[in-house]
């Protein structure tokens, strides 16, 4: 106790009281605030750059793509002349009337009707006659009468009407001939053009003519492909995850399986395409270019994602629920399928939807199994040749015709809308069914 009585000078190693107001201390505090301010600025800046890229991407796509949903049509008066069509009015009224009408010569009739466009008679789409056929087959009484119809125009006129060309530029660099420009001016002057919603874009499949090409075929192809993917990947993924979490013996084998699954999730997607080509097409002989093979290939690709997400969701179910169920005599299978999996389902669904969204946007593996095909019909089933949305984007972006530029961006818009919708559902499910214990 003697040290207490000793004077301060006797203990030189005693710490000086901290001077919180000293100059050094003030500088340290200022430096700390500065570091924090800089960090916040850098964070906000990084976010701004990212948001800027995203906004630029969306802006250019929407700017180029929104006109893809519109198309220009020209007004023509069509005289449904039986002689030009090469049909006998009597047989049209007979029992085989529709069959007779289906075989009629609409191209001749279209060429005849186009003459009223005078100098611009060459501006109608090559498939404009389809509009005549559809109209007459819907109403056979039109035979012999005159009807005003709106038919699609060629892509060049369509783009001129949408203002896609810089007409002040010299003719050799503006990408469109004087002839077409004058045709278009004439049609405009006559009041024969209108712009309407492009139903063909939503309903049709691919075509060599931009004004006729649509994403309907690719969308249906994507739907079929994803259906196959879900039907295979979801049950396989969930069962694998449930077995790994609840039944697999712990040990070396489980570790190897776990490692393999994690590695599989990181395998480049084109490898799965090679597997699909080698096994499903060449060995198993499944139909090339079909949603069936595409779906199986994509299922293999996203299954690890579903397994990983499902395992995390199953791990998050508290052990007390398992104890409770086991404690009243539920069998292990009942515990898993009546308690654990239902409780983990929101997490499993989220993982699955994210996996499916990835599959929806995938092109590389599908290139190798032939889904790069030019398919002009909407697919009739999972074994018929088809293409998918991102592949359609790729095919159109590769096309030299100017009219496909807006189609490419419009298809991207459709793809993005579907992806955003799917992710929104995933977020909704997660928030709606999330449980806390």
């Amino acid at each position, binding site marked *: 106790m003697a040290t207490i009585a000793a004077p301060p000078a006797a203990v030189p190693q005693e710490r000086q009281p901290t001077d919180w107001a000293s100059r050094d201390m003030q500088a340290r505090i200022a430096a700390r605030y500065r570091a924090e301010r800089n960090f916040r600025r850098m964070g906000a800046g990084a976010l701004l750059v990212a948001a800027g890229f995203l906004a630029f991407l969306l802006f250019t796509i929407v700017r180029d793509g929104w006109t893809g949903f519109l198309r220009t049509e020209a007004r023509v008066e069509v005289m449904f002349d039986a002689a030009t069509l090469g049909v006998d009015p009597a047989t049209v009224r007979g029992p085989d009337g529709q069959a007779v009408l289906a075989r009629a010569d609409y191209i001749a009739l279209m060429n005849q009707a186009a003459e009223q466009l005078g100098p611009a008679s060459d501006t109608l789409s090559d498939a404009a006659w389809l509009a005549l056929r559809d109209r007459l087959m819907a109403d056979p009484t039109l035979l012999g009468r005159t009807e005003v119809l709106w038919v699609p125009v060629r892509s060049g006129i369509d783009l001129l009407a949408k203002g896609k060309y810089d007409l002040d530029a010299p003719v050799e660099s503006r990408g469109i001939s004087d002839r077409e420009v004058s045709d278009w001016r004439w049609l405009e002057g006559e009041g024969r053009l209108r712009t309407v919603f492009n139903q063909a874009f939503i309903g049709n499949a691919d075509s060599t003519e931009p004004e006729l090409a649509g994403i309907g075929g690719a969308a249906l192809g994507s739907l079929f492909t994803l259906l196959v993917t879900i039907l295979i990947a979801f049950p396989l993924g969930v069962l694998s995850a449930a077995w790994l979490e609840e039944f697999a*013996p*712990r040990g070396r084998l489980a570790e190897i399986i776990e490692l393999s699954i994690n590695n599989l999730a990181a395998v480049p997607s084109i490898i799965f395409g090679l597997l699909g080509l080698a096994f499903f097409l060449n060995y198993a002989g499944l139909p090339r270019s079909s949603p069936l093979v595409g779906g199986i290939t994509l299922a293999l690709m996203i299954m690890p994602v579903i397994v990983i997400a499902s395992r995390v969701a199953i791990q998050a179910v*508290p052990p*007390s*629920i*398992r*104890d*409770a*169920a*086991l*404690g*009243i*005599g*539920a*069998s292990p299978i*009942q515990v898993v399928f*009546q*308690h654990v999996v239902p*409780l983990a389902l929101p997490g499993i669904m989220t993982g699955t939807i994210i996996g499916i969204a990835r599959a929806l946007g995938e092109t590389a593996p599908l290139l190798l199994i032939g889904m790069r095909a030019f398919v002009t019909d909407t697919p009739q089933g999972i074994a018929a040749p088809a293409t998918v949305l991102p592949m359609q984007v790729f095919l159109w972006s590769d096309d030299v015709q100017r009219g496909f530029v807006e189609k490419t961006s419009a298809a991207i818009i459709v793809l993005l809308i579907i992806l955003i919708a799917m992710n929104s559902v995933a977020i909704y499910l997660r928030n709606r069914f999330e*449980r806390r214990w």
Partner: protein
Amino acid sequence: MNTTPAIGHNNVPKMTARDVHVYYGQTHAIKGVSIDVSSEHVTAFIGPSGCGKSTFLRCLNRMNDTVDSARVEGRIELDGQDIYAPAMDVVQLRARVGMVFQKPNPFPKSIYENVAYGPRIHGLARSKADMDAVVESALRRAGLWDEVKDRLETSGTAMSGGQQQRLCIARAIAVDPEVILMDEPCSALDPIATARIEELIDELRGRYAIVIVTHNMQQAARVSQKTAFFHLGTLVEYDDTPAIFTNPQQTRTKDYITGRYG
């Protein structure tokens, strides 16, 4: 087959354990416990943390089977039947030997579904009316009916902790077990809810063989007729509850109940 007389044997036992050893990997958690559990009484297992009382309790309905590293040796019988025999169906065993856990763990389903789940998986009710009757009687016996009869469809997890624990007891009762094991059923509850559970245990006495693990010596004294004192994986003393608390035969028991350690 076993010549060692069981301690505390005073009528036909519901469950008997003979020389039970439990190992978790290299750890020897239970070292040769022999005990008889009567269906007449509430039996309390007391002892300091880590003494093996919960481990031993979980051997009585083979809940330790879920722990990969656990190994049980010795013989445990329910009505003279070896519960670790290959012929014993563990699902049926757990229906006959129900369990209530430390933390209330109702299923995140409706109150009705919580109680009806057990009877349903064991096929104990033939019709909806049957099931309604089973659920009502279980909730009545758990003293919960009057509180929940108007909201059977609300979630079991939305109730208070004490109600949840009584719901868990109702869920265990609903499959009509012969033995109910309770693993510190009140440790997560406040004193009022605890008192309510203790009353309930008293009401259930005689109908079911009840074994309760507790940290709380006062609780053991209040609810049980037989008390077993565990220490370091061995059963130190097993006797009528008043005898354990007023006249313990072993020094270790005496030291524990007088608060020397634990």
